[in-house]
């Protein structure tokens, strides 16, 4: 992979893809997570449901990861 501006931009693109999705998922899970812990403080049985609800936004990150991977593939194919 030659190190020119094109490669650099592709790398930035991949980085943006993963970081933006990660921040989005983090913000979402932060809100859900704190609500879960609050609910658990009153009712321990809610741990299971709470955990599952908290990790629902992971899907967003996975999509970001897939896009980042595809973008990197673009660089190697070139």
């Amino acid at each position, binding site marked *: 992979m030659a190190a020119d501006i094109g490669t650099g931009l592709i790398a930035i693109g991949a980085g943006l893809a993963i970081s933006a999705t990660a921040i989005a998922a983090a913000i979402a899970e932060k809100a859900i997570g704190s609500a879960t812990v609050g609910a658990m403080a009153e009712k321990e049985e809610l*741990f*299971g449901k709470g*955990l*599952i609800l908290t990790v629902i936004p*992971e*899907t967003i990150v*996975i999509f970001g990861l897939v896009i980042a991977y595809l973008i990197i593939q673009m660089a190697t194919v070139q």
Partner: protein
Amino acid sequence: MHSKRLSRDKMLKAKRMQKLTLVCSQARLADVVRTLHSLGAVHIRKHKKDELDIGEPFPEAEQTSSLLNRTESLIAQLAAPRKDYQKLRRNLAEDEAEVARIEQAHQDKQQKISLLEAERAEIRKLRDVLERIAPLGLHVEQLSGYGSLAVFVGTLKKELASQKVHAITKDSALMQKENILALFMRKGKEEQIAKLLQSHGFQQIDLSALAGKKGSPSELQRSAAQQLEDVEKRMALARKYITFMGEKHAKFLLSLREHLAEALEKAEAPLQFAKSDFAYLVTGFAPKEKISLIREQLEKATRNSIHLMISEPGKHDNVPIELDNPRGAKPFEFFLDLYALPRYQEIDPSLFMALTFPLFFGIILGDFGYGAVCLLLFLWLRSRFPKAKALMNIFIYSSLGSIVFGFAFGEFFGYEELFGYAIPRLLSRVNQIDLLMGFAVAVGVVHVNWGVLAGFANELRSHGFVHAANAKLSWIVLEAGVALLALSLTGILSLHWGLGAALLALAVIMLYKGEGIPGLVEIPGIFSNILSYLRLMAVGMASVMLAVVVNQFAGEFAAGGGAMIAAGVLVFVIGHTINIALGILGGGLHSLRLEYVEFFTKFYKGGGERFKPFGAKG
């Protein structure tokens, strides 16, 4: 009856229970309660008041309960130490008398302590006053009790010139030392003097503590100190006596408490039964293998005068759950306690977790050296904290998994080669990341579909084949459809893309029929779940990279020679300790999350109630 452990009905499920329904008369109730309690094998289903009332407790319940309270409070107040004791059969009246005696003795001592505390406060007050007036050098009886003189004793902020006093009244004597003032004057002009004193920031000292005392301040201070010592000694003695009481009566009080707690449980048992005008109705569940014993004992105790009905639990009965796993999988029941117990008809996933949790942990931590350290650590922790045995056993199995994968990945404390020889391995985590990613996704595909199949088995049992196939098998068809479509479109498989598309369409239809719109919305979810297993690679890589970096640092330090070698070793130890701690934490959490979120959501409902038999110990 010869029951095979591997029979379809028993494997992978909670212990099989039978439902008991018992009817007895008031006269037989005490025998029934006593027998059930001694058996400790029946989980009583609490009766909720409908057409039938709930029963009333036995008459001795109130007395037992109050005596139990008094015993508990004595144990707390005397701080009775934990001791081994034997259970004694005692007489309620005798026990109450003994408890009353102990309470009285305790009360007496407490009162004594209060009186001593009051005395001490007084002596302290006296001591303070003496300290303050000591600089004046006057005897205490000189400071009060005059018929014709007024006395002012106190502290001043500004020094008072005696002329000012004499200006107001000639018959006066003034003593000032440090900032203490004693002013004696003929009665008559107190108000003017008071004003003068106020302008100098005068604050009167309260001399009431000196009432009736004679002598110089230093004498009195000495005697006060003596008295104080004496009071403190007596207080310490009283407190010691209370501790001694605690030790002396510990055995009695503790065994009494246990006896009373049990008696109260039995006395209040009828509150869980249903009651009609002349009979009581008890509903409960018990393990199948204990049923014949229960029937035998109940009939013997009540001389066959009760009606006992044993039946299979109904579909809508909330049967209590006692997990029943082979010894290897038993520690993993801890994870179910954390999350939710399975329902009676569901599959118990402990065995599955026993197989996959150490696998995931091993893939993440995958280092022979780290695994060995963890193994030793958890073996030691298990001996130190026998209470956390289940959790420690889980981590011991997981450490073994780490060691196995350490061999597979060929890593030893982050080193890929030792003494110049490359460690033999199946896969290099540092160099073959793509292969590792593929492996992680493969694990994901297998695990998620395993969950789907378990869900299929659960649905089959509860809702029949058609619904089960539509709700669960559709996912597998979906994955197959997408895979075929992708493979045929990219030309890897020479099949028409229509085949993949057809499977996909079939899957969507089946899913819609099985779960409706919410099911369709979940479609991206399953691919996200499979890709989630990439964390096995990701967290593992983080651990490996950190180890490699630590090794490089340590190597650079050690290359300095001499004292730097010690620094290198220090960096090595600290760095790898932190990495192991992160690995245990991260590895454990991520593996657990994969189980709970990606695996359980495919088949597990949970919500079972724990089996708590009436009369069981602990």
